[in-house]
């Protein structure tokens, strides 16, 4: 069994201020990501896809209650103490986010930040770490890496910063890379480059990738298999080409049909039915938090 990451009936709930039970953010999700594949999770707001990803590295806020099992390389992750989690983050499992600027210290040279990740997890001299950081920067496509080593993040463009973050993530050759909307904040031409980079790197290093996104196009270009989430539930899973061509779940069908890129110009796009709409999730959340709003029915 070469499942690098497995979720076993995982549910995540958050405590609410008024004590009322809240709908779980993740509701009974089970899936396995096999070694070497890129697995995409696609979903809209409130689907729980980011919550699921954050649960793997123990990045959820204290008010979160997680049940079920999450295993990385067969090892249970949920009960781990802080030290063990720290040892895992950046080492066996690495994560990159939508906003590269939030992951980088604005006052440190980027090269040092990559080197720091190296030295946090292995015995390596400062000079060796520096050399390896330069090599990583070159590998992710930063030209003139040696002289750009000492530049601070804001001297890089958005796409370049994301490359730096990828370099730091891959520094210790992780077996699993979790990418949460890694290109959503980037221009489409830069996005194309970064996606290509992620694909090339994972082929070269054999890294398994869990890619969280809302963009069907990204999934279709990059992912071997894809899972569709709505309202905390995993609705269906399958090989990308099959699932996108012949979706079985009504939500998936509606979501794919809503893509304007594939529709005929000037025609009305099909509407996702109310029971699968993002708005009804949001309205339920609002009514739970402010019961006084009841009386204004949903549109």
């Amino acid at each position, binding site marked *: 069994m070469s499942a690098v990451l497995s979720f076993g009936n995982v549910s995540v709930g958050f405590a*609410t*201020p008024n004590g009322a039970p809240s709908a779980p953010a993740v509701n009974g999700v089970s899936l396995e990501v096999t070694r070497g594949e890129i697995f995409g999770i696609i979903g809209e707001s*409130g689907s729980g896809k*980011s*919550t699921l990803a954050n649960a793997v590295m123990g990045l959820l806020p204290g*008010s979160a209650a997680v049940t079920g099992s999450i295993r990385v390389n067969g090892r249970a992750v949920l009960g781990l103490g802080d030290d063990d989690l720290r040892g895992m983050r950046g080492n066996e499992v690495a994560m990159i986010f939508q906003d590269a600027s939030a992951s980088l210290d604005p006052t440190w040279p980027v090269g040092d930040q990559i080197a720091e990740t190296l030295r946090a997890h292995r015995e390596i001299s400062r000079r060796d770490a520096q050399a390896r950081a330069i090599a990583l920067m070159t590998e992710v496509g930063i030209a003139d890496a040696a002289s750009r080593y000492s530049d601070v993040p804001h001297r890089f463009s958005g796409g370049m910063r994301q490359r730096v973050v990828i370099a730091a993530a891959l520094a210790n050759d992780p077996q699993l890379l979790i990418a949460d909307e890694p290109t959503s904040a980037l221009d489409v031409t830069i996005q194309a480059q970064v996606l290509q980079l992620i694909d090339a790197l994972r082929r070269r290093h054999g890294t398994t990738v869990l890619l969280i996104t*809302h963009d069907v196009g990204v999934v279709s270009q990059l992912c071997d298999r894809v899972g569709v989430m709505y309202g905390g539930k995993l609705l269906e899973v399958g090989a990308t080409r099959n699932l996108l061509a012949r979706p079985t779940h009504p939500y998936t069908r509606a979501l794919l049909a809503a893509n304007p890129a594939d529709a005929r110009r000037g025609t009305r796009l099909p509407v996702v039915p109310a029971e699968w709409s993002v708005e009804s999730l*949001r309205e339920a959340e609002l009514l739970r938090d402010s019961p006084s709003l009841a009386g204004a029915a949903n549109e």
Partner: protein
Amino acid sequence: MSSELNGSIASTRGRLPRRSSSRFMIIGGAMLLALALIAALAPFIAPYDPETVDARRVMNAPDFLHPFGSDVLGRDVLSRILYGLRVSLAVSVSAVAASLSLAVPLGLLSGYFGRWVDTTISRSLDMILVFPAMLLAVTFIAILGPGSVVTAIAIAVIYLPILARVMRTSTLIVSRNDYVAGARARGASHLRVLASHVAPNALGPVIVQASVLSAFALQLEAGLSFLGLGTQPPTPSLGGMLADGREVLVQAPWVEIFPGLAIVVAVLAFTFLGEGLRQAFDPRGVAE
């Protein structure tokens, strides 16, 4: 991307209780209300006239008739504290209020219009910032003479650039929002936009700052009175009482301690209120 894409983590943000902020505000507000009432009703609740000298009761220790004792001239300390609070609160609150009434419009204009308007106003106000507070106050007093009114004016001037700067910053942030541009596109004049959109959304931080500065204003007034430059005798003032009490600290410590405590309580009240306000406004309320 919509912040809702961040999933439940973002949505719990709106639900976390702000209990500690309301606790601060209630305690601070209650304390201030009590102090204000006491100060306002001082003439009615003070047991004795604060300025009546009584040679027989010089430096008497606190007893049943005089709960806080008497000072070097036999005056009742409790009564003097009540009247002194009046002066301290009146000076600090009126000074900050006066300062706000100028700082808010100046900050609004600076932040909203920018460019030469901003440069002119900011540089002019910066000139005030150059001087240390005490020095500026003393200079005012040297020119205009000592007294409560001059002290209030000096404090108002000292805090004007600080409050204006805070207002300017939050105005800058609020003005960047699309609803401001939208209002202009929908026919609103600059004045209308400032009054109905910018000011209400930008006032939060400056209110917080004003309540914090009130605490400092109180100390400033006390300090100036301590030096003999603020409220002039025989009008009771907390700072003046501190100065008088210093000389007899060993023989009659109550003459120094009780006025000092009164200052501490008043400063705490303003600080609690300011802290509660700060927590209530931060982080989702104002800064977008």
